[in-house]
Protein backbone atom coordinates (compact mmCIF):
# COMPACT_ATOMS: atom_id res chain seq x y z
CA UNK A 1 0.00 0.00 0.00
CA UNK A 2 1.47 3.35 -1.09
CA UNK A 3 1.55 6.01 1.66
CA UNK A 4 -0.87 8.86 1.14
CA UNK A 5 1.81 11.56 1.17
CA UNK A 6 3.62 9.84 -1.69
CA UNK A 7 0.48 9.91 -3.78
CA UNK A 8 0.17 13.62 -3.11
CA UNK A 9 3.82 14.34 -3.99
CA UNK A 10 3.53 12.24 -7.13
CA UNK A 11 0.35 14.07 -8.11
CA UNK A 12 1.91 17.48 -7.58
CA UNK A 13 5.00 16.51 -9.60
CA UNK A 14 2.86 15.16 -12.43
CA UNK A 15 0.81 18.35 -12.46
CA UNK A 16 4.00 20.41 -12.59
CA UNK A 17 5.33 18.39 -15.53
CA UNK A 18 2.04 18.78 -17.44
CA UNK A 19 1.94 22.51 -16.71
CA UNK A 20 5.56 22.92 -17.88
CA UNK A 21 4.85 20.95 -21.05
CA UNK A 22 1.84 23.14 -21.81
CA UNK A 23 3.74 26.35 -21.05
CA UNK A 24 6.95 25.43 -22.92
CA UNK A 25 5.79 26.21 -26.51
CA UNK A 26 4.40 29.57 -25.39
CA UNK A 27 7.66 30.33 -23.55
CA UNK A 28 9.71 29.43 -26.65
CA UNK A 29 7.55 31.73 -28.81
CA UNK A 30 8.07 34.56 -26.34
CA UNK A 31 11.84 34.03 -26.28
CA UNK A 32 12.03 34.05 -30.08
CA UNK A 33 9.87 37.15 -30.24
CA UNK A 34 12.06 38.91 -27.69
CA UNK A 35 15.20 37.92 -29.61
CA UNK A 36 13.81 39.34 -32.90
CA UNK A 37 12.74 42.46 -31.09
CA UNK A 38 16.21 42.95 -29.57
CA UNK A 39 17.92 42.46 -32.95
CA UNK A 40 15.58 44.86 -34.71
CA UNK A 41 15.95 47.40 -31.96
CA UNK A 42 19.74 47.21 -32.09
CA UNK A 43 19.73 47.61 -35.88
CA UNK A 44 17.25 50.48 -35.64
CA UNK A 45 19.29 52.16 -32.92
CA UNK A 46 22.44 51.89 -35.00
CA UNK A 47 20.74 53.41 -38.01
CA UNK A 48 19.46 56.25 -35.87
CA UNK A 49 22.91 56.81 -34.40
CA UNK A 50 24.44 56.97 -37.84
CA UNK A 51 22.06 59.02 -39.98
CA UNK A 52 23.36 58.21 -43.42
CA UNK A 53 20.45 59.34 -45.53
CA UNK A 54 20.71 63.09 -45.29
CA UNK A 55 17.77 64.99 -46.63
CA UNK A 56 18.97 67.99 -48.59
CA UNK A 57 15.87 69.68 -49.93
CA UNK A 58 17.78 72.93 -50.29
CA UNK A 59 20.28 71.49 -52.74
CA UNK A 60 19.76 72.19 -56.42
CA UNK A 61 18.39 69.35 -58.52
CA UNK A 62 20.93 67.95 -60.94
CA UNK A 63 21.01 65.03 -63.33
CA UNK A 64 22.95 62.09 -61.95
CA UNK A 65 23.90 58.87 -63.62
CA UNK A 66 23.00 55.67 -61.77
CA UNK A 67 24.26 52.26 -62.84
CA UNK A 68 21.68 49.54 -62.45
CA UNK A 69 21.58 46.07 -63.99
CA UNK A 70 20.75 45.50 -67.62
CA UNK A 71 17.37 43.83 -67.99
CA UNK A 72 17.68 40.15 -68.89
CA UNK A 73 19.96 37.38 -67.79
CA UNK A 74 23.12 38.37 -69.62
CA UNK A 75 24.42 40.60 -66.84
CA UNK A 76 25.96 44.02 -67.32
CA UNK A 77 25.11 47.54 -66.22
CA UNK A 78 23.08 50.28 -67.85
CA UNK A 79 23.46 53.99 -66.99
CA UNK A 80 20.16 55.63 -66.04
CA UNK A 81 19.76 59.42 -65.67
CA UNK A 82 17.91 60.54 -62.55
CA UNK A 83 17.24 64.07 -61.22
CA UNK A 84 18.23 64.45 -57.58
CA UNK A 85 18.85 67.31 -55.15
CA UNK A 86 22.58 66.81 -54.80
CA UNK A 87 24.91 68.31 -52.22
CA UNK A 88 28.21 69.91 -53.17
CA UNK A 89 29.94 68.10 -50.32
CA UNK A 90 31.46 64.90 -51.77
CA UNK A 91 30.67 62.77 -48.69
CA UNK A 92 27.02 63.85 -48.63
CA UNK A 93 26.80 63.50 -52.40
CA UNK A 94 28.21 59.96 -52.20
CA UNK A 95 25.63 59.07 -49.52
CA UNK A 96 22.82 60.54 -51.62
CA UNK A 97 23.71 58.63 -54.78
CA UNK A 98 24.37 55.37 -52.93
CA UNK A 99 21.05 55.62 -51.11
CA UNK A 100 19.36 56.20 -54.45
CA UNK A 101 21.19 53.16 -55.82
CA UNK A 102 19.98 51.11 -52.85
CA UNK A 103 16.42 52.39 -53.25
CA UNK A 104 16.58 50.74 -56.64
CA UNK A 105 15.30 51.38 -60.15
CA UNK A 106 11.67 51.40 -61.23
CA UNK A 107 12.11 47.90 -62.63
CA UNK A 108 12.97 45.65 -59.65
CA UNK A 109 14.64 43.13 -61.99
CA UNK A 110 17.38 45.68 -62.67
CA UNK A 111 18.39 45.86 -59.02
CA UNK A 112 22.03 45.22 -58.25
CA UNK A 113 21.78 45.57 -54.46
CA UNK A 114 19.23 43.99 -52.12
CA UNK A 115 16.29 46.23 -51.15
CA UNK A 116 16.74 45.63 -47.42
CA UNK A 117 20.41 46.65 -47.37
CA UNK A 118 21.30 50.05 -45.92
CA UNK A 119 24.30 52.33 -46.15
CA UNK A 120 25.44 52.85 -42.57
CA UNK A 121 28.36 55.20 -43.16
CA UNK A 122 30.49 56.73 -45.87
CA UNK A 123 33.90 58.39 -45.51
CA UNK A 124 36.45 59.73 -47.96
CA UNK A 125 40.08 59.43 -46.89
CA UNK A 126 42.66 62.04 -47.96
CA UNK A 127 44.12 59.61 -50.51
CA UNK A 128 40.74 59.41 -52.30
CA UNK A 129 39.64 56.08 -50.86
CA UNK A 130 35.90 56.06 -50.27
CA UNK A 131 34.81 53.75 -47.46
CA UNK A 132 31.26 52.50 -47.76
CA UNK A 133 29.88 50.66 -44.75
CA UNK A 134 26.77 48.62 -45.49
CA UNK A 135 24.40 46.72 -43.21
CA UNK A 136 24.56 42.91 -42.95
CA UNK A 137 21.81 42.52 -45.54
CA UNK A 138 24.23 43.40 -48.32
CA UNK A 139 25.94 40.09 -47.56
CA UNK A 140 22.96 37.95 -46.64
CA UNK A 141 20.59 39.13 -49.39
CA UNK A 142 22.88 39.65 -52.40
CA UNK A 143 22.46 36.63 -54.71
CA UNK A 144 25.50 34.40 -54.23
CA UNK A 145 27.69 34.08 -57.32
CA UNK A 146 30.71 35.65 -58.98
CA UNK A 147 28.64 37.42 -61.64
CA UNK A 148 25.97 38.80 -59.31
CA UNK A 149 28.47 39.93 -56.66
CA UNK A 150 30.65 41.59 -59.28
CA UNK A 151 27.62 43.44 -60.67
CA UNK A 152 26.77 44.69 -57.19
CA UNK A 153 30.25 46.09 -56.56
CA UNK A 154 30.60 47.45 -60.07
CA UNK A 155 27.29 49.29 -59.84
CA UNK A 156 28.54 51.04 -56.67
CA UNK A 157 31.94 51.84 -58.16
CA UNK A 158 30.61 53.16 -61.46
CA UNK A 159 27.88 55.23 -59.81
CA UNK A 160 30.49 56.85 -57.56
CA UNK A 161 32.82 57.37 -60.49
CA UNK A 162 30.08 59.13 -62.48
CA UNK A 163 28.91 61.41 -59.66
CA UNK A 164 31.63 61.78 -57.05
CA UNK A 165 34.97 62.34 -58.83
CA UNK A 166 36.73 62.80 -55.49
CA UNK A 167 36.42 59.05 -54.86
CA UNK A 168 39.31 57.23 -56.53
CA UNK A 169 39.04 53.87 -54.80
CA UNK A 170 36.31 52.05 -52.99
CA UNK A 171 36.61 49.95 -49.86
CA UNK A 172 33.49 48.09 -48.75
CA UNK A 173 32.86 47.25 -45.11
CA UNK A 174 29.96 45.23 -43.74
CA UNK A 175 28.56 46.35 -40.40
CA UNK A 176 31.78 48.24 -39.68
CA UNK A 177 33.98 45.22 -40.26
CA UNK A 178 36.19 44.11 -43.08
CA UNK A 179 34.63 41.06 -44.73
CA UNK A 180 36.42 38.31 -46.64
CA UNK A 181 33.82 38.20 -49.41
CA UNK A 182 30.58 39.90 -50.37
CA UNK A 183 28.39 36.77 -50.52
CA UNK A 184 30.92 33.95 -50.74
CA UNK A 185 32.89 34.83 -53.85
CA UNK A 186 34.02 38.41 -54.47
CA UNK A 187 37.09 39.48 -52.50
CA UNK A 188 36.33 42.44 -50.22
CA UNK A 189 39.70 42.50 -48.47
CA UNK A 190 41.04 44.77 -51.19
CA UNK A 191 40.02 48.23 -52.38
CA UNK A 192 38.36 48.50 -55.78
CA UNK A 193 39.64 51.04 -58.22
CA UNK A 194 36.82 53.38 -59.20
CA UNK A 195 37.29 53.74 -62.91
CA UNK A 196 35.17 54.08 -66.04
CA UNK A 197 36.99 51.24 -67.74
CA UNK A 198 36.63 48.53 -65.17
CA UNK A 199 35.69 48.13 -61.56
CA UNK A 200 36.68 44.52 -61.26
CA UNK A 201 39.08 45.47 -58.52
CA UNK A 202 42.80 45.91 -58.43
CA UNK A 203 45.14 46.00 -55.51
CA UNK A 204 45.94 49.36 -53.98
CA UNK A 205 49.13 51.00 -55.17
CA UNK A 206 50.35 51.23 -51.58
CA UNK A 207 50.64 47.68 -50.35
CA UNK A 208 49.44 46.77 -46.91
CA UNK A 209 52.02 46.78 -44.13
CA UNK A 210 53.14 43.31 -43.00
CA UNK A 211 50.75 41.72 -40.56
CA UNK A 212 47.83 43.86 -41.64
CA UNK A 213 45.44 43.33 -44.49
CA UNK A 214 44.57 47.03 -44.72
CA UNK A 215 46.67 50.10 -45.44
CA UNK A 216 47.12 52.28 -42.35
CA UNK A 217 44.65 55.09 -43.29
CA UNK A 218 41.94 52.57 -44.13
CA UNK A 219 42.62 50.66 -40.92
CA UNK A 220 42.12 53.91 -38.98
CA UNK A 221 38.81 54.50 -40.70
CA UNK A 222 37.76 50.90 -40.06
CA UNK A 223 38.56 51.39 -36.38
CA UNK A 224 36.52 54.64 -36.35
CA UNK A 225 33.51 52.88 -37.84
CA UNK A 226 33.93 49.97 -35.43
CA UNK A 227 34.02 52.30 -32.44
CA UNK A 228 30.95 54.16 -33.69
CA UNK A 229 28.96 50.94 -34.11
CA UNK A 230 30.02 49.64 -30.71
CA UNK A 231 28.83 52.76 -28.90
Amino acid sequence: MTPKWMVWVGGVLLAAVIAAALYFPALRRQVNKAKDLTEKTAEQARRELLPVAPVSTGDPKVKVKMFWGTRGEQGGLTPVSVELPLSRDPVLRAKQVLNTLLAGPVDPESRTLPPDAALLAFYILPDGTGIADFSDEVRSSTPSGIQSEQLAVESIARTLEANVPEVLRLKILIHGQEADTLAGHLDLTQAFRVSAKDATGTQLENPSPPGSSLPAPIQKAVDRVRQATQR
Partner: protein
Amino acid sequence: MGPSFGAAYFFERTMRFRFGILLGVRSLPTTTLVLLGSLLGAALCAFSLAGAPQQQAGTTTQTPAAAPPTTAPHSGLNVVVLDPAHGGTDPGARGTEGISESDEVLQFAAATKKALEAQGFQVILTREGNNNPSFDDRSARANAQRGAVFISLHIASTGLAGTTRVYVQPDEPIPNTTSGLIPWDHAQAPFQSLSRKLGDLVQQELSKRFKGSPETLQTAPVRQLRTTAAPAIAVEISSVSVKDRAELDRMVPGVADGIARGVAAFRPSYVIPSIPVPGGSVQP
Protein backbone atom coordinates in the same frame (compact mmCIF):
# COMPACT_ATOMS: atom_id res chain seq x y z
CA MET B 1 46.16 37.53 -42.11
CA GLY B 2 49.74 37.28 -40.98
CA PRO B 3 52.69 37.36 -43.35
CA SER B 4 52.53 33.75 -44.39
CA PHE B 5 54.28 32.62 -47.54
CA GLY B 6 53.06 30.21 -50.18
CA ALA B 7 56.47 29.59 -51.62
CA ALA B 8 57.90 29.21 -48.13
CA TYR B 9 55.36 26.51 -47.49
CA PHE B 10 56.47 24.65 -50.58
CA PHE B 11 60.15 25.15 -49.71
CA GLU B 12 59.59 23.91 -46.18
CA ARG B 13 57.89 20.77 -47.37
CA THR B 14 60.62 19.98 -49.86
CA MET B 15 63.51 20.68 -47.50
CA ARG B 16 61.88 18.88 -44.58
CA PHE B 17 61.80 15.78 -46.79
CA ARG B 18 65.48 16.18 -47.68
CA PHE B 19 66.61 16.89 -44.14
CA GLY B 20 64.47 13.98 -43.00
CA ILE B 21 66.56 11.62 -45.10
CA LEU B 22 69.80 13.14 -43.82
CA LEU B 23 68.79 12.97 -40.18
CA GLY B 24 67.54 9.42 -40.58
CA VAL B 25 70.93 8.28 -41.90
CA ARG B 26 72.82 10.05 -39.10
CA SER B 27 70.78 8.41 -36.42
CA LEU B 28 71.64 4.88 -37.61
CA PRO B 29 74.43 2.84 -35.95
CA THR B 30 77.91 2.95 -37.56
CA THR B 31 77.85 -0.68 -38.71
CA THR B 32 74.58 -0.13 -40.52
CA LEU B 33 76.00 3.00 -42.13
CA VAL B 34 79.04 1.04 -43.38
CA LEU B 35 76.78 -1.67 -44.75
CA LEU B 36 74.53 0.87 -46.49
CA GLY B 37 77.59 2.66 -47.91
CA SER B 38 78.94 -0.61 -49.32
CA LEU B 39 75.61 -1.43 -50.90
CA LEU B 40 75.35 2.04 -52.40
CA GLY B 41 78.89 1.80 -53.79
CA ALA B 42 78.19 -1.59 -55.34
CA ALA B 43 74.98 -0.28 -56.89
CA LEU B 44 76.79 2.71 -58.37
CA CYS B 45 79.50 0.47 -59.88
CA ALA B 46 76.89 -1.82 -61.42
CA PHE B 47 74.96 1.16 -62.79
CA SER B 48 78.04 2.74 -64.38
CA LEU B 49 79.11 -0.56 -65.95
CA ALA B 50 75.66 -1.15 -67.38
CA GLY B 51 75.36 2.41 -68.68
CA ALA B 52 78.74 2.54 -70.43
CA PRO B 53 77.86 0.58 -73.57
CA GLN B 54 74.67 2.56 -74.03
CA GLN B 55 76.57 5.82 -73.81
CA GLN B 56 79.01 4.64 -76.40
CA ALA B 57 76.19 3.57 -78.68
CA GLY B 58 74.55 6.94 -78.18
CA THR B 59 77.64 8.81 -79.33
CA THR B 60 77.77 6.87 -82.54
CA THR B 61 74.14 7.29 -83.51
CA GLN B 62 73.24 10.74 -82.20
CA THR B 63 74.80 14.13 -82.72
CA PRO B 64 74.78 16.55 -79.76
CA ALA B 65 72.25 18.75 -81.57
CA ALA B 66 69.83 15.87 -81.84
CA ALA B 67 70.14 14.96 -78.17
CA PRO B 68 67.13 15.67 -75.97
CA PRO B 69 67.21 19.33 -74.89
CA THR B 70 67.79 18.76 -71.21
CA THR B 71 67.93 22.49 -70.42
CA ALA B 72 64.82 23.48 -72.39
CA PRO B 73 61.71 24.21 -70.32
CA HIS B 74 59.49 21.17 -70.18
CA SER B 75 55.85 20.91 -69.33
CA GLY B 76 55.61 19.86 -65.73
CA LEU B 77 51.85 19.91 -65.55
CA ASN B 78 50.71 16.68 -63.97
CA VAL B 79 48.24 17.58 -61.26
CA VAL B 80 44.85 19.27 -61.40
CA VAL B 81 43.40 20.50 -58.12
CA LEU B 82 39.62 20.62 -58.46
CA ASP B 83 37.78 22.78 -55.97
CA PRO B 84 34.04 22.18 -55.51
CA ALA B 85 33.18 25.49 -53.86
CA HIS B 86 31.34 25.99 -50.55
CA GLY B 87 30.08 22.98 -48.51
CA GLY B 88 29.31 22.29 -44.88
CA THR B 89 27.44 25.16 -43.30
CA ASP B 90 27.92 27.25 -46.46
CA PRO B 91 25.46 26.03 -49.11
CA GLY B 92 26.47 28.73 -51.61
CA ALA B 93 23.77 29.78 -54.08
CA ARG B 94 20.34 28.30 -53.46
CA GLY B 95 17.64 27.83 -56.07
CA THR B 96 13.90 27.85 -55.69
CA GLU B 97 13.71 24.12 -56.46
CA GLY B 98 15.88 23.23 -53.47
CA ILE B 99 19.05 23.10 -55.55
CA SER B 100 22.11 24.11 -53.58
CA GLU B 101 25.42 25.07 -55.15
CA SER B 102 27.50 23.10 -52.63
CA ASP B 103 25.76 19.80 -53.52
CA GLU B 104 25.62 20.31 -57.28
CA VAL B 105 29.30 21.21 -57.68
CA LEU B 106 30.27 17.83 -56.19
CA GLN B 107 28.53 16.14 -59.10
CA PHE B 108 30.34 18.38 -61.61
CA ALA B 109 33.65 17.79 -59.83
CA ALA B 110 33.28 13.98 -59.88
CA ALA B 111 32.61 13.96 -63.63
CA THR B 112 35.42 16.44 -64.32
CA LYS B 113 37.82 14.31 -62.27
CA LYS B 114 37.03 11.28 -64.44
CA ALA B 115 37.47 13.27 -67.65
CA LEU B 116 40.81 14.69 -66.48
CA GLU B 117 42.09 11.28 -65.37
CA ALA B 118 41.24 9.98 -68.83
CA GLN B 119 43.58 12.67 -70.16
CA GLY B 120 46.36 11.37 -67.90
CA PHE B 121 46.20 13.92 -65.08
CA GLN B 122 46.36 13.22 -61.39
CA VAL B 123 43.35 14.92 -59.80
CA ILE B 124 43.10 16.17 -56.23
CA LEU B 125 39.73 17.35 -54.84
CA THR B 126 39.71 20.03 -52.16
CA ARG B 127 36.63 18.36 -50.69
CA GLU B 128 34.74 15.16 -51.43
CA GLY B 129 31.97 15.37 -48.87
CA ASN B 130 29.80 17.99 -47.25
CA ASN B 131 32.59 19.86 -45.47
CA ASN B 132 33.86 23.40 -45.96
CA PRO B 133 37.64 23.84 -45.96
CA SER B 134 38.76 27.46 -45.62
CA PHE B 135 39.87 29.47 -48.63
CA ASP B 136 43.47 29.13 -47.48
CA ASP B 137 43.20 25.37 -46.91
CA ARG B 138 41.89 24.95 -50.44
CA SER B 139 44.70 27.09 -51.88
CA ALA B 140 47.24 25.15 -49.81
CA ARG B 141 46.27 21.93 -51.60
CA ALA B 142 47.46 23.48 -54.87
CA ASN B 143 50.38 25.41 -53.37
CA ALA B 144 51.86 22.20 -51.97
CA GLN B 145 52.04 20.68 -55.44
CA ARG B 146 54.68 21.29 -58.04
CA GLY B 147 53.26 21.40 -61.54
CA ALA B 148 49.58 21.86 -60.76
CA VAL B 149 46.65 23.94 -61.97
CA PHE B 150 43.70 24.94 -59.81
CA ILE B 151 40.09 24.97 -60.99
CA SER B 152 37.33 26.24 -58.70
CA LEU B 153 33.82 25.10 -59.64
CA HIS B 154 30.77 27.28 -58.93
CA ILE B 155 27.10 27.43 -59.82
CA ALA B 156 25.64 30.94 -59.99
CA SER B 157 22.29 32.10 -58.73
CA THR B 158 21.92 34.37 -61.76
CA GLY B 159 22.80 34.37 -65.43
CA LEU B 160 21.42 32.78 -68.58
CA ALA B 161 20.62 29.14 -67.78
CA GLY B 162 22.80 26.64 -69.61
CA THR B 163 25.84 28.91 -69.94
CA THR B 164 29.28 28.90 -68.34
CA ARG B 165 31.81 31.62 -67.60
CA VAL B 166 35.49 31.34 -66.76
CA TYR B 167 37.05 33.91 -64.40
CA VAL B 168 40.64 34.83 -63.60
CA GLN B 169 42.07 37.34 -61.14
CA PRO B 170 42.58 40.91 -62.41
CA ASP B 171 46.21 41.80 -63.08
CA GLU B 172 48.28 42.94 -60.13
CA PRO B 173 52.02 43.63 -60.03
CA ILE B 174 54.26 40.86 -58.76
CA PRO B 175 55.28 41.92 -55.25
CA ASN B 176 58.95 42.79 -54.89
CA THR B 177 60.38 40.79 -52.04
CA THR B 178 63.99 40.59 -50.95
CA SER B 179 63.75 36.87 -50.22
CA GLY B 180 62.23 35.87 -53.55
CA LEU B 181 59.35 34.23 -51.72
CA ILE B 182 55.80 35.09 -52.74
CA PRO B 183 53.61 36.58 -49.98
CA TRP B 184 50.64 34.30 -49.42
CA ASP B 185 48.12 37.09 -50.06
CA HIS B 186 49.64 37.73 -53.50
CA ALA B 187 50.34 34.11 -54.42
CA GLN B 188 48.45 34.38 -57.70
CA ALA B 189 50.45 37.34 -59.04
CA PRO B 190 53.30 35.45 -60.78
CA PHE B 191 50.83 33.03 -62.39
CA GLN B 192 48.43 35.56 -63.93
CA SER B 193 49.52 35.16 -67.55
CA LEU B 194 49.38 31.37 -67.24
CA SER B 195 45.94 31.61 -65.62
CA ARG B 196 44.75 33.72 -68.55
CA LYS B 197 46.06 31.20 -71.04
CA LEU B 198 44.39 28.33 -69.20
CA GLY B 199 41.18 30.33 -68.81
CA ASP B 200 41.06 31.20 -72.51
CA LEU B 201 41.47 27.57 -73.54
CA VAL B 202 38.84 26.30 -71.11
CA GLN B 203 36.37 29.07 -72.03
CA GLN B 204 36.82 28.30 -75.74
CA GLU B 205 36.01 24.64 -75.13
CA LEU B 206 33.00 25.49 -72.95
CA SER B 207 31.56 28.08 -75.34
CA LYS B 208 31.61 25.44 -78.10
CA ARG B 209 29.41 23.24 -75.94
CA PHE B 210 27.12 25.81 -74.30
CA LYS B 211 25.54 28.41 -76.58
CA GLY B 212 25.22 31.84 -75.11
CA SER B 213 28.41 31.48 -73.08
CA PRO B 214 30.96 34.26 -73.60
CA GLU B 215 33.75 33.55 -76.09
CA THR B 216 36.38 35.11 -73.87
CA LEU B 217 37.18 34.79 -70.18
CA GLN B 218 36.17 37.35 -67.56
CA THR B 219 38.17 38.95 -64.81
CA ALA B 220 36.91 39.24 -61.24
CA PRO B 221 38.62 39.41 -57.85
CA VAL B 222 37.51 35.96 -56.74
CA ARG B 223 38.75 35.42 -53.19
CA GLN B 224 39.67 31.79 -53.74
CA LEU B 225 42.05 32.52 -56.62
CA ARG B 226 44.10 35.25 -54.90
CA THR B 227 46.04 32.93 -52.58
CA THR B 228 46.65 30.18 -55.11
CA ALA B 229 50.25 29.80 -56.33
CA ALA B 230 49.38 28.01 -59.56
CA PRO B 231 47.54 28.80 -62.78
CA ALA B 232 44.04 29.21 -61.35
CA ILE B 233 40.59 29.75 -62.81
CA ALA B 234 37.02 29.76 -61.53
CA VAL B 235 34.32 28.18 -63.69
CA GLU B 236 30.79 29.42 -62.97
CA ILE B 237 27.81 27.56 -64.34
CA SER B 238 24.34 29.12 -64.63
CA SER B 239 22.34 28.52 -62.63
CA VAL B 240 20.69 27.16 -59.48
CA SER B 241 17.58 29.06 -60.59
CA VAL B 242 16.72 26.53 -63.34
CA LYS B 243 13.16 25.26 -63.21
CA ASP B 244 14.23 21.63 -63.37
CA ARG B 245 17.33 20.08 -61.81
CA ALA B 246 17.69 17.92 -64.95
CA GLU B 247 18.76 21.04 -66.86
CA LEU B 248 21.88 21.23 -64.69
CA ASP B 249 22.44 17.48 -64.82
CA ARG B 250 22.50 17.63 -68.61
CA MET B 251 25.39 20.11 -68.43
CA VAL B 252 27.64 17.81 -66.38
CA PRO B 253 29.28 15.79 -69.23
CA GLY B 254 29.84 18.91 -71.37
CA VAL B 255 31.42 20.88 -68.53
CA ALA B 256 33.66 17.92 -67.58
CA ASP B 257 34.76 17.32 -71.15
CA GLY B 258 35.28 21.03 -71.87
CA ILE B 259 37.47 21.52 -68.81
CA ALA B 260 39.48 18.35 -69.47
CA ARG B 261 40.15 19.30 -73.09
CA GLY B 262 41.03 22.86 -72.12
CA VAL B 263 43.55 21.68 -69.52
CA ALA B 264 45.01 19.15 -71.96
CA ALA B 265 45.44 21.92 -74.55
CA PHE B 266 47.14 24.04 -71.90
CA ARG B 267 49.65 21.34 -70.95
CA PRO B 268 52.31 22.20 -73.60
CA SER B 269 52.35 25.88 -72.62
CA TYR B 270 52.82 25.20 -68.91
CA VAL B 271 56.17 26.16 -67.44
CA ILE B 272 56.80 27.06 -63.82
CA PRO B 273 57.22 30.83 -63.83
CA SER B 274 60.36 32.44 -62.49
CA ILE B 275 60.06 34.81 -59.56
CA PRO B 276 62.18 37.95 -59.89
CA VAL B 277 64.63 38.41 -57.04
CA PRO B 278 66.48 41.66 -56.36
CA GLY B 279 70.03 41.15 -57.62
CA GLY B 280 69.07 39.64 -60.93
CA SER B 281 68.78 35.95 -60.19
CA VAL B 282 65.53 34.10 -60.53
CA GLN B 283 63.94 31.46 -58.42
CA PRO B 284 61.75 28.89 -60.12
